[in-house]
């Protein structure tokens, strides 16, 4: 791989990788069973340079911000490279947000360029907020012939001949602005520097190196910090290959493992659990004698891999299981949300190492990672090289807030010095997560201090972001909380949002109100929905400026009523 210590920016590292690994395959893009694109590093350079030149000619200047709203595909990475080559700042936005939310973040980021897929652009142009869009240049990919692009340019045609000038950036310059939340409330744009990414990449590849011939299956959205690192920067600076699938249908994902003999994949818990369900169903279909043999073989594998993974041995012991994953899988990487230890243990016992980790967008990608020496399903691993972790204000059991100091921690929140000061104190990032270290230096997490949830799909959801959907609800006041914030748990998981309602005097909670809440809740994407409600009998405590004192209200509710009092919505 490249020696990243020698580089000052991602653009330079990627540029050198394209030269060093010119003949290696860097990208495969498949749609279902059809392979659509296969590019070598040299091909990748050939398709990205005309775009970089066209950006230069369109006065896209160093430091200008460029948003990408795309599903995982080759044009995502080609565009990102062209933007870095031109000295631009990348703003990866979540394609699963609503058009209004995307427009809000586009405005907040002040992106002058947008690269977007046609179906997403069509939705954006139909949103009422579109009339206020300030983005100067829009490149629309995969638009049908004759489609109205509402002032945008066709991505496929946006290219110019001639070599573009490479723009060098310094380590402290901004590489990306990544939104960790804040679509409905206060946007949290994490400003990450080139140094943040280069150091993160160095730390991760020190423990889990890529090399030419490795095939990484990119399923997590590339706008997500994990896939951006292990599905783009990491493989590219090592000469490995990234496989994109245009569908997340479980049967095509399973096929891709086999067709492309995948080496690594990063998955969120929801997908890992889906794979587990599928395997368990297959095992249940076996005749009892075959099942008994399988169980015995799994037990032997478990015994032999107790101290460390022995992938080759496991492949011999459980060939059918491993063939279903392509036969060359070295590890499932998980993160972004709480994963049940039993699920991780299930895969590990089959001889498929599960690399569990912990991180947050504010800290690049990962702060801690399981080094598999030995595998521990009950922890999120040890601090990565270069990462310092501390537990602040530990209680009798050693549990306190986890704080991190590392070259991978973001510079600041975009346009929010107040929040930055609250979050990064004397160089330490306050994570808001509660944890402790065990005797062997592994970090164990025990819940959250902050009022938020992380879904099984790896999405951070803040109550303030979903509250706006209930604007004008016919009650005196309401407030949305993370249930675990109101009723603290000593574990992660069971995360959901609840809405506390304060009714008007003499108002009864009736079916019309319930129906209205259900209807509004359904307007939210499924992963953002509120899971329960409770009726609170007192006025909410408020500050002098009439803001709800959320923490005080949560504490009072938590003291007064049981979690079970929240009725499912």
């Amino acid at each position: 791989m490249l020696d990243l210590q020698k580089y000052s920016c991602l653009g330079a590292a990627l540029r050198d990788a394209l030269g060093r690994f010119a003949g290696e395959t860097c990208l495969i893009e498949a749609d279902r069973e059809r392979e659509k694109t296969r590019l070598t590093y040299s091909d990748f350079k050939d398709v990205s340079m005309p775009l970089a030149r066209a950006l230069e000619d369109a006065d896209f200047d160093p430091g200008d911000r460029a948003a990408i709203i795309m599903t995982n595909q080759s044009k995502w990475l080609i565009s990102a490279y062209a933007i870095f080559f031109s000295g631009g700042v990348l703003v990866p936005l979540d394609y699963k947000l609503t058009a209004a939310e995307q427009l809000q973040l586009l405005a907040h980021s002040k992106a002058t360029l947008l690269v977007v897929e046609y179906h997403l652009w069509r939705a954006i142009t139909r949103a009422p907020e579109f009339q206020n869009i300030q983005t100067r240049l829009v490149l629309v990919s995969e638009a049908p012939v004759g489609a109205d692009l509402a002032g945008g340019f066709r991505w496929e045609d946006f290219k110019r001949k001639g070599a573009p000038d490479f723009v060098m950036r310094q380590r402290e310059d901004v590489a990306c602005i990544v939104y960790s939340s804040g679509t409905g409330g206060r946007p949290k744009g994490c400003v990450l520097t080139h140094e943040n990414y280069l150091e993160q990449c160095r730390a991760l590849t020190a423990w889990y190196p890529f090399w030419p011939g490795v095939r990484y299956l990119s399923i997590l959205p590339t706008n997500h910090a994990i896939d951006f690192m292990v599905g783009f920067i990491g493989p590219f600076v090592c000469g490995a290959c990234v496989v994109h699938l245009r569908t997340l249908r479980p049967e095509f994902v399973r096929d891709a493992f086999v067709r492309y003999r995948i080496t690594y994949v990063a998955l969120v818990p929801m997908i890992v659990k889906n794979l587990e369900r599928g395997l368990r169903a297959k095992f249940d279909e076996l005749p009892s004698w075959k099942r008994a043999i399988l169980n015995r073989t799994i037990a032997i594998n478990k015994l032999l891999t107790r101290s460390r993974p022995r992938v080759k041995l496991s492949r011999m012991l459980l060939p059918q299981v491993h063939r279903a994953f392509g036969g060359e899988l070295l590890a499932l990487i998980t993160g972004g949300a709480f994963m049940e230890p039993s699920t991780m243990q299930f895969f590990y016992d089959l001889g498929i190492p599960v690399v569990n980790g912990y991180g947050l967008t504010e800290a690049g990608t990962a702060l801690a990672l399981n080094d598999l020496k030995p595998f521990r399903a009950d922890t999120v691993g040890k601090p990565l090289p270069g990462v310092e972790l501390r537990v602040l204000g530990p209680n009798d059991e050693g549990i306190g807030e986890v704080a991190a100091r590392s070259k991978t921690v973001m510079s600041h929140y975009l346009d929010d010095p107040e929040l930055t000061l609250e979050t990064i104190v004397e160089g330490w990032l306050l994570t808001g997560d509660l944890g402790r270290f065990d005797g062997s230096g592994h970090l164990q997490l025990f819940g959250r201090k902050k009022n938020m949830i992380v879904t099984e799909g790896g999405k951070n959801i803040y109550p303030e972001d979903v509250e706006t959907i209930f604007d004008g609800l016919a009650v005196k006041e309401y407030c949305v909380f993370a249930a675990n914030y109101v009723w603290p748990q000593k574990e992660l998981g069971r995360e959901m949002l609840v809405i506390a309602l304060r009714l008007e005097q003499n108002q009864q909670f009736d079916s019309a109100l319930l129906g209205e809440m259900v209807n509004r809740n359904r307007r939210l994407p499924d992963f953002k929905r509120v899971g329960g409600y409770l009726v609170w009998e007192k006025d909410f405590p408020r500050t002098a400026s009439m803001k709800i004192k959320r923490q005080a209200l949560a504490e009072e509710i938590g003291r007064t009523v049981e979690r079970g009092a929240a009725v499912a919505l």
Partner: protein
Amino acid sequence: MEVLRFAQDDRVFMNNSEQTLEEILSLAAAHFKVPRERLAPDDDFFKTLGIDSLQTLDLLTKLENHFRVELPDYELQGVSDFRTLAGRIQARL
């Protein structure tokens, strides 16, 4: 004559839509092993069936095979009830 033809087309479309919806409800009931009568067109299928977004993608494959259409994943984005899903499929028939 022109008006009459449109009216007939509309009627045919409505009938087909209802039929598509009914077939989706039956297929979903069979796929997730719940009684058909438990499912209604405007149900939030995440809630009624207790499924996640990946499981809905599984269902989508069944529906594609049945109706012989191909639906990109993004067609399901923001869809959480059977009636809207039927509309998306009907548009591609």
